[in-house]
């Protein structure tokens, strides 16, 4: 009997706090998002009208396309560069040097995202470090006020967004270096020994040994990358606030602006609902493709 009471406390108390303060609100977004309201929420007016409004709003597509670009950027560029670096770090280099490199690459991951965002905001000032750097390597013609002037490179992709991408990659790639390094450590050394005996070239070694072992990892990390790209708010908001105009808007900034600038919280919760669904779907798809869906 005493055991029953213990079991009850062990589960009910921790779980209910979680339920009340996190799970229930997140689930209620589906009700909130399908009602029309602006400041006082209502659950009674369920209709598809808010969805229609959202899907005919060009700002929604702008934001989502930017999110998808971030996803593409993180899954291919961030993971790609991180993979190369993690691979290079496996070469025979002095252990001390490796620790130094690893620590340095990991630094941005541990520093507050807001601090980093403000750091980049400062570097992108017209007379800031970034432009100075460009001038010093002879690319001075590219110097510009990165966060306030808009030059379109291709549809939905302007110079402020490019600036954002650079900052984001700088920040996050170190985390993936750590993850890939941990994963590569699992590859049995004997494969490499056999390859050495067979006299395989570097490229073949990569293709036949490293890449196949890395594939499942790539999917796992992609899940991280995807959910991170859809969550992104802190970095974007503190550098550009989604601007200028909408050139760096993402789902998060769109939602925030609707809720707290236009004071249209009902619409904002519709955005939240759709983002939650999209993010959830993408994670499920990744899990399925990596074969880890339970």
């Amino acid at each position, binding site marked *: 009997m*005493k*055991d029953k009471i*213990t*079991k009850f406390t*062990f*589960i009910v108390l*921790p*779980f209910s*706090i*979680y*339920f*009340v*303060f*996190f*799970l229930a*609100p*997140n689930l209620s*977004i589906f009700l*909130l998002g399908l009602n029309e309201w602006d400041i006082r929420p209502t659950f009674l007016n369920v209709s598809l009208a808010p969805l229609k409004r959202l899907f005919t709003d060009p700002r929604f597509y702008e934001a989502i396309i930017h999110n998808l670009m971030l996803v593409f950027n993180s899954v291919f560029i961030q993971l790609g560069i991180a993979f190369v*670096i993690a691979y*290079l770090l496996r070469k025979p*280099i002095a252990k001390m*040097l490796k620790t130094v*490199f690893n620590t340095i690459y*990991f*630094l941005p991951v*541990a*520093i*507050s995202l*807001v*601090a980093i965002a*403000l*750091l*980049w905001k400062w570097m992108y*000032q017209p*007379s*800031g*470090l970034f432009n*100075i750097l460009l001038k010093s390597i002879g690319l001075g013609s590219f110097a510009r006020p990165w966060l306030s002037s808009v030059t379109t490179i291709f549809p939905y992709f302007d110079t402020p967004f490019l600036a954002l991408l650079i900052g984001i990659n*700088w920040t996050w790639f170190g985390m993936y270096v*750590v*993850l890939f390094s*941990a994963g590569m450590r699992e590859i049995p050394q004997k494969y490499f020994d056999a390859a050495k005996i067979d006299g395989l070239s570097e490229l073949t070694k990569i293709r036949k040994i490293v890449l196949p072992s890395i594939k499942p*990892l790539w999917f796992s990390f992609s899940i991280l990358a995807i*959910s991170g790209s*859809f*969550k992104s*708010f*802190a970095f974007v908001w*503190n550098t550009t*606030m989604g601007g200028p105009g909408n050139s760096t808007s993402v*789902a998060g900034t769109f939602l925030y602006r609707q809720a*707290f600038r236009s004071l249209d919280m009902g619409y*904002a919760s519709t955005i*939240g609902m759709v*983002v*939650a669904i999209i*993010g*959830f779907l993408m*994670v499920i798809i990744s899990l399925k493709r990596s074969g880890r869906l339970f």
Partner: protein
Amino acid sequence: MKERTNSYKYLIIIGILVTIALIIIGPIFFLILNTFKPTSEVLTAPFSLPSHFTLENYAQVWPYMKSAFLSSLKVTIGSVGMLLLFPPMVAYSLSFSDFRGKRIITLMSLFGIFAIPVAGILPIMLLLKNLNLINTHIGLILVYYGLYYPIGVFIIREYYNSISPSLWEAAEIDGLSFWGKYRKIFFPLAKPMLIALAILMTVYIWNEYTLALVLLNDSAKYTVPLMLSSLGGQYGAPWGMRLAGIGLSVIPMVIIVTFFSDELRRGMSFGTVQ
């Protein structure tokens, strides 16, 4: 001939690694350098050495940052404390006992891993408003607990699931109760996991921005990320002060990362690389 090509390749590899390291550490170095310059120079000549070394930025920003550090400390300790106390209890129960509704509880506990904080901020804000917990540190602590509870349960449950069931049987033979087994065996067993979890959660919660932004209105209650953001925002502080604020929050982290680099990296890769 082989020796030469090897060291040539070696140099290129080191070159690449060093270049990337410089790219990473460069901005941080210049950030810190510029905190010692007067604001006028910070914007006009960020690259050069200070004309005169000054601590005025730090002096100006300190009152704000001190309040923010205290708030963050309070919230982080509160949340991480709850996260070290409760999720192991749940994981233990899920791994080692059966009861009605176990599947549902498991599913719901792990479901939260997929939740996207940005999407759910509004209902959470409305909830806290109704409970009069808006703009309080306690409210924020409870929300952070809810946010990271799923990951905690997941990681510890995986760990408990990997333990051989004979341990439980042996403890049963010794006549230990449910609570007894937890206290004497299974909680101590999870210590290494809990340490890694504690480090990870501390970093996440300390740096959390979005929820804190929505749930705290009073600048006296701001956590560190919020304070930095308000200093650096549209109507914020002069740049020298902003950089000093950033510097104050970055420097401790740099020190922690330098000394705990291995643990941090291990904690981060656990659960993803399995």
